[in-house]
C-alpha cells in the first residue's frame, strides 16, 4: 500500500509518540496477559500493513530468542519461593519460569511492534524528525547509509576485474592472498576517497555550509494527526495513572501472585490495546472508503 493511505499517512511526530508510548508501556506493564493482548494487537497492525510478510520473515529469529529466554532464565535465576523440581543440583522455581515466560512474551511483543515501526517510519519520516534536531547530522546519516551498498557493489566489481590479472584472494600462497586482499581494499578506499572529494565539490558548489540549512522534507500535520495524537496522549495518561496506582503489573518475586486480572489490570489492558490499535482506525476507515467507491462504480 502506498504512502498517504491509512496508517502510513500519519505524521512522523504522531508515529514517534505511538512507538515511544508502545515501547515504554510494553516494558512497564509486566503482566503476561496484558503483554499477550498487546502482542495480539501489534500482530494485527502488522497483518494489516503488509499481510504479515515482514513479520513472517522475522518470525524464526524471534522464536529463537523467545525459546532462549524461556530456557535460560530458570536455569540462571533461582529467585522465588516455590521450587518446582531439581535439574541435577539446580533448583527450578515456578517464579523464574513465570518471569522467563513473561520476558519472552515482552520480547516477542516489542519485536513485533518494531517490525511495524520499520514499515510505518520510513527513512524519510525518520530524517524529517532528525533534521529538526540537527540538519547536518541527518545529512551525514543519509550519506553514510548510501555509502555502504555502494562500497559493496564496487568491491565486487573490483574483485572481478582484478582477478583477471591475478590480484585475487583465491589464488596463490596465504601471504600472496593477504597481500592481494590488502591491495584490493586499498584501491577501493583510494577510489572512494577520490569520489568523495568530487562529491564535496558538488556540495560546496551548491552553497553547502554558507549558513543555517533548512529542510525540504515536509509532512503536513492534518486533522487526523491531531485526533490521533490526542487519543494517544489521553490513553498514555490513563495507563500511566493506573500503573502508578499499582495496576497492570504481575507480582512474580518473591512469590507468584494470581494471574487473575484485577479491575485496574483489566482497565490498563483495554486502554493499552486500544492505544496499540489506534493506527488501524485509519487503515479501516480508508479501506472501507475504497470498498464503498469500488462498489459504487
Amino acid at each position, binding site marked *: 500500500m502506498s504512502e498517504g493511505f491509512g496508517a502510513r499517512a500519519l505524521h512522523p511526530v504522531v508515529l514517534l509518540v505511538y512507538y515511544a508510548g508502545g515501547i515504554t508501556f510494553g516494558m512497564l506493564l509486566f503482566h503476561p496477559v496484558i503483554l499477550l493482548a498487546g502482542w495480539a494487537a501489534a500482530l494485527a497492525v502488522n497483518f494489516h500493513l503488509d499481510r504479515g510478510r515482514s513479520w513472517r520473515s522475522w518470525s524464526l529469529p524471534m522464536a529463537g530468542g523467545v525459546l532462549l529466554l524461556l530456557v535460560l532464565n530458570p536455569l540462571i535465576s533461582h529467585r522465588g519461593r516455590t521450587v518446582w523440581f531439581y535439574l541435577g543440583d539446580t533448583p527450578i522455581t515456578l517464579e523464574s519460569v513465570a518471569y522467563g515466560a513473561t520476558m519472552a512474551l515482552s520480547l516477542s511483543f516489542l519485536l513485533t511492534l518494531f517490525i511495524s515501526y520499520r514499515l510505518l517510519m520510513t527513512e524519510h519520516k525518520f530524517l524529517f524528525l532528525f533534521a529538526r534536531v540537527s540538519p547536518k547530522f541527518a545529512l551525514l546519516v543519509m550519506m553514510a547509509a548510501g555509502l555502504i551498498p555502494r562500497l559493496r557493489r564496487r568491491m565486487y566489481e573490483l574483485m572481478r576485474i582484478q582477478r583477471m*590479472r591475478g590480484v585475487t584472494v583465491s*589464488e596463490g600462497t596465504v601471504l600472496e592472498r593477504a597481500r592481494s586482499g590488502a591491495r*584490493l581494499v586499498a584501491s577501493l578506499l583510494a577510489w572512494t576517497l577520490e569520489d568523495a572529494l*568530487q562529491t564535496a565539490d*558538488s556540495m560546496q558548489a551548491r552553497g553547502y*555550509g554558507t549558513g543555517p540549512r533548512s529542510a525540504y522534507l515536509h509532512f503536513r500535520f492534518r486533522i487526523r494527526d491531531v485526533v490521533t495524537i490526542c487519543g494517544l496522549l489521553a490513553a498514555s495518561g490513563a495507563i500511566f495513572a493506573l500503573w502508578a496506582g499499582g495496576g497492570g503489573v504481575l507480582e512474580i518475586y518473591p512469590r507468584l501472585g494470581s494471574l487473575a486480572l484485577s479491575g485496574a489490570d483489566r482497565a490498563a489492558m483495554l486502554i493499552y490495546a486500544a492505544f496499540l490499535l489506534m493506527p488501524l482506525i485509519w487503515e479501516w476507515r480508508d479501506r472501507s472508503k475504497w470498498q464503498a467507491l469500488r462498489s459504487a462504480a
Partner: protein
Amino acid sequence: MEGSEQVASFAFRGVTFMYPEADRPALSGVNLSVKEGEFAVLSGPSGSGKSTLLRLLKREVSPGGRLNGTILLDDRPIEAWPAREAAARVGLVMQHPDQQLVVDTVEHELAFGMENLGFSRDAMRRRMAEMAGFFGLEPLLSRRTDELSGGQKQTVNLAAVLMLQPRLLLLDEPLAQLDPLSARELLGMIRRLNDEWGITVLMSEHRVDDLLPAADRVVRLEEGAVAFDGSPREFAREAWERRESAWLRALPAVTRWALERGLDDSALEPAAGFPVPLSVKEGRQWVRRIAEMKGVSAAPNGGDCSVVPTTDRRAENADPLTPAADMRAADSRKPLLEAEELFFAYDARSPAVLRGLDWTVRSGDRIALFGGNGSGKSTLLRLLAGLHRPQRGRIRLNGEPFSRIASRSLHARIGYLAQNPQLHFAFDTLREDLTHAAARIGALDPVGEALRMASRFGLTHALDRHPHDLSGGERQLGALAVVLLGKPELLLLDEPTKGIDAERKMRLAVHLEDIHREGATIVMATHDVEFAAAFANRCSLLFQGEIVADDMPGSFFRGNLFYATPLHRLLGGDCSRSADRAERGEALR
C-alpha cells in the same frame, strides 16, 4: 554587437594562476569577457587550463594557488560577493554524473541546494514544481538516484544546479561520460536554458559536432593562454589557416570535410564567399551551391559525389577490399570466438539481457559493437571475457568451450578493458602496475617491458604517479597498457573513447591499428560512431538481446540515420563509400 551598454556576465582581467609547486602557470595573462546571455564554448586540448578557468569562476571550488589579476562577476570582483549570493549566482556541472549526486532521491537531490541556502519550505516547493516540469523530471522525483541512467543522472545534476536560478552556468565537460543520444538531449536542454531564460553559458567539451552550431562564441585555450576568441565561423577559418591538426580536430566533421574540399579547389576557399558549414543542414546547402556554381545539377538529396575529391575515387577503385571481397575474406578466416544461443539475466527476477544470441568473432576482426543504452553491450563483452557465466548457451575459444579452459589461461588469452579504467589499477604507481602485469605472463624483463609499453603510449612522464592521479585520458591508456601487457589474442574494449579528447582519440586509433597488425583481434563496444567508422572492419548491432546487424562499415552505415556519422548523414546513401574513405583517410593520416 560590441556595445558597452551590454553587461559583461564575467570578465578576466590579466589573470595568471599558478598551482602550488607547479613550474609554469596554469593560466597566463588571460583576458576574457563574456556578455550576459552568451553561449560560449571553451575549447582546447586536455591540460590547457579549461577546468582551472571554470573553477576560478566558481569561488566555492576554486583551486588553491597564486592568483594575479582580477576576476569580475557582473562588474564586481568575485571575492567581494557575499557567500550565499555567489553560490546561487554561478552554477557548475562537472563531468562525472555519479559523484555529483549527494542525497538519496531525485526530489531531495533537487532540493539540496535550496536547503543549503535556507529557503523557506513554500519557496522550495514552488521552485521544485517549476523545475521538475521544465526538465520533465516529474516521473522520476521519487526514484532513488542510484537507479537512474547516466543521462538521467546528469539531467538531475543540471536541474539541481538550476534550482538556485544561477545567471551564469559553467559546464565542465558535462557530456563526456554520456552516450551520444543522452548527450544530445542534455545539450538540447542547455540550449533551451540559454535561449529561453537567457542564462549565460560557458561550456568546455570535446565533442563539438552538435555544440559548435549552437554556440555564439568559441574561446580556445592553449597552454593556459587564450589562443582564439571569436565566433564559431571565424574559429573554423582560423583553424583552417593555421592548418594544425589539433585545431582542425576541434571542428565538427562536416566543417572539416568542407574545408578540405576547399583546399583541393581554390574556388571553394572559405574566403570566396562561401560560409563554412557548421552543421549537416548547412553542409547540404554548401554542397548544393557548389554544384550550382560548377554547373552540375545537384541530386535531390544534395548528395552529388562529384564534389568529393577525385583522389578518394581513385583510392576506391584501387582498393582491393571491395565489400564482396572482404566478406569472402572474412568467411575464410577461422573463427576465434563463437557464442551460441547465449541467454543471460543478472538475476531470476530481472528480464534477460541476452536472449539466444549467436555471434562469431573471427581472428583478425576489428569489430565495433553498437547498441542503445542498456541493450547489453557491456554484458555481452563481460560474458565473452568469462567474467559471468551465461544461464544457457556456450562460448568457445578456438573451438574449445569456456568451461574446459582454466580461468587463468582464459584471462591470459582474452584481455578485457572495463568501462571504468580505474578498476584495472591495484598498485601505488603506474610503474608497479605495469611491471606486475608484465611479470604475470612470465616476461623475462618485466621492468623493461613495462617501460617500453609506457613509452609507446606516451606515459613515461606518468610512470611514478599514483594511478588515481592520472588525467582521464592517461588513465584510459594506462589501463589499456595493463591489459595489453598480458599479450591477449583477443581484446575486448568497453567504450574505450569515453571522455577522451579528439587528438588522443586518434592516437588511440593508431595504437589499436598497431596492436591489430601484431595479430590481436579486437572487439569494441562503443557509442562513438566516428571512431568506429575510422577503425572497424566490421560493425554489429545489438538489439533486444540479439545481434541484428553484422556487416562491413560501409554497408552498415549506409542508410542509417542514427547510427551514422555526420558525413554519412551529409552525403546520403550514394556517396557513403566516399564518406568512408574520407573518414578512414583522416584517421590514419
